């Protein structure tokens, strides 16, 4: 069945690259082709997943290669929905890029399709947990960038004509935070099924909670817009540091070495 993957992957790749190129056009027809291409590319992967599922008579959720299919399919699908809602073509481009990366990994390394997942990872919550975190981190990473640029702008270091940094920063952060919350909750639901308890204050979980709390505080700071813009921008830029600690930093923290989440090589 995996032999057919190349056809579907190639189809998606072509459709998505077309969609990506059309991101730079403001023409209405181009926009329509862009949207159709994006959806078709995503559908192609979903169709392949359905066929694989049917062929193997089990959900394709047991190997790393199989999980990457779901990443490609859902990141492109959710990316499209968020883009349609908010008209953020940059995010569409980014989703395409991420989906293509996962496709390419599968395409270029066919011998690791059967690389098996540990039993604890074979859960229906694993893939959603990873997907929403990938999307969340991309939004919050972008909010960090906006924070840095916005700060420079608020201090008069750069000029910007068509960009309203503050509303953009808010929106991006809210969307990123929504996905971050989903990631936290899906992780808890997964943990309950796999480990017996939904929350154990494992170092990764603790840092994920701290990251969540830091962005939650931002949302509340923005509720009445009490603080000046430069404070908000700086906050967003620094908040991302906490996210990075959660993402990578725990591998180096002495207190965190016993975590189940420390990715061993």
């Amino acid at each position, binding site marked *: 069945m995996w032999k057919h993957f190349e056809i579907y992957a190639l189809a998606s790749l072509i459709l998505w690259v077309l969609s990506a190129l059309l991101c730079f056009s403001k023409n209405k027809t181009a926009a329509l082709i862009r949207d159709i291409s994006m959806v078709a590319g995503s559908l192609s992967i979903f169709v392949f997943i359905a066929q694989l599922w049917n062929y193997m008579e089990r959900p394709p959720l047991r190997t790393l290669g199989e999980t990457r299919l779901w990443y490609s399919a859902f990141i492109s699908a959710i990316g499209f929905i968020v883009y349609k809602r908010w008209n953020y073509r940059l995010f569409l481009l980014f989703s395409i890029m991420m989906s293509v990366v996962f496709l390419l990994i599968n395409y270029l390394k066919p*011998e690791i399709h059967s690389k098996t997942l540990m039993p*604890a990872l074979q859960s229906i919550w694993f893939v959603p947990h990873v997907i929403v975190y990938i999307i969340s981190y991309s939004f919050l990473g972008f909010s960090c960038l906006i924070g840095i640029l916005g700060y420079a702008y608020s201090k008069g270091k750069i000029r910007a004509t068509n960009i309203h940094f503050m509303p953009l920063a*808010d929106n991006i952060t809210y969307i990123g935070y929504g996905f971050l919350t989903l990631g936290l909750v899906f992780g808890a639901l997964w943990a309950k099924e796999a480990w*017996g308890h939904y929350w154990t204050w494992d170092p990764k979980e603790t840092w994920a909670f701290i990251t969540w709390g830091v962005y939650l505080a931002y949302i509340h*700071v*923005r509720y009445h817009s009490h603080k000046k813009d430069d404070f908000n921008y700086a906050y967003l830029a620094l908040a991302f540091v906490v996210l990075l600690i959660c993402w990578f930093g725990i591998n180096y923290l002495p*207190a965190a070495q016993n975590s189940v989440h420390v990715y061993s090589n």
Partner: protein
Amino acid sequence: MNNNKPLWQQPWQYKESFLIMTAILIGAGVCDIWGNTAVPPIFFPYNITIGIIALLCSMGIVLLQKKYAIFRWLLSVPASISAIAGFVGISAIMALTPQNPQATALHFPYNITSSWTYAITIGYFLIILGAISLKRLYPFSARNIGFALNHWGLYCIIFAASLGAGDVQKLNMTLDTGKTIWYGTKNQQTYELPFAIRLNEFGIDEYPAKFAFVHTQTGTVLSENGRNAIFDCDTSVIFQYKEWQVQIQDFLQSSAPVNNRFMAMHDFGSTQSARITIKNTLQDTAFDAWMASASILYPPLHVKINDSLTFIMMQPEPKRFYSSIRVYKNNGHKYDTIIEVNKPITIDSWKIYQTSYDETKGKWSSISILEVINDPWLIYVFIGFYMVIAGSAYLIWNGKKQSKTNMKKNSHVETF
């Protein structure tokens, strides 16, 4: 915001909020370190009583806000942010110090979840959260649905998780094959359960082993063109490393050595084995060999090609850990079922998980260790989870609600 008012004059804002939160943390922290007693486990009916009192405090704050400035402050954004910061702060202490639940030394900071600082911080957070959630309930408006889902959802989660922790029963059941056990153990104490379990069989299904070329002296996996010379078991593929080609002719998932070869066998100590052909493409020579991965009875059988090259069969990875059991319930009903990792079973309000086994015997373990958990508050935590999921979808879709003036200003907001 009025930045020129003297400190401690109402209305309190950020400075006062953070000073109070810091005072609470430091005060509680000092008491913890000085007294060094853990918070006693709070079980039913004490936990629900405390919960109701907390909810009543929240109600009191809302009902009396007009009369007392301090209650208006508790409902304000700065107070909320300081409470969030307090919760995040105590979590940061947990993240930066090694947490050891068996610590007999200081509870604070080495076992934060049993400290009074933790309990007080969460209590403070919960009371404020409850108050602000109640405040926005009335007058009821559709605009507040997202707010309600997120805030009440979080309230359910924190309320049920913190207060319900004392009611969680987490026991181990160590089952020997063929024996029936009706109790669970924790810390050498036994607790009778409303059911009994007999272990029929514990098993581990394995994936077929992988194969690799390694260096004979060091055992490290070799690589060629940046790729590790590790191969999945596939009889149709030729494994290549430099001038050497290996192909699997026969693969036996479960076998034992007999004379100079392996034969299919399913008894104790069986192992995976393969008959391979190794070909040298430069010299055009080839030979056959049997190889096997290690089991508890037999050492691994590798094929040494020369002093620097050996072809090995790696230890197979587990695919599935399972216990085949018979459950006996108090009412006489009995049935057979299987518990696997990630596939716990439910008996009444108990959830039973496959946890461990005798690792020295591997898949031939005659012991299976199960974890049985009873969490009566779980349903409320899950209700909270699903409310928060809905609330997050609301946030993702709606973003930040713009005020009317901002909407006009940003009507051409980014199409990025």
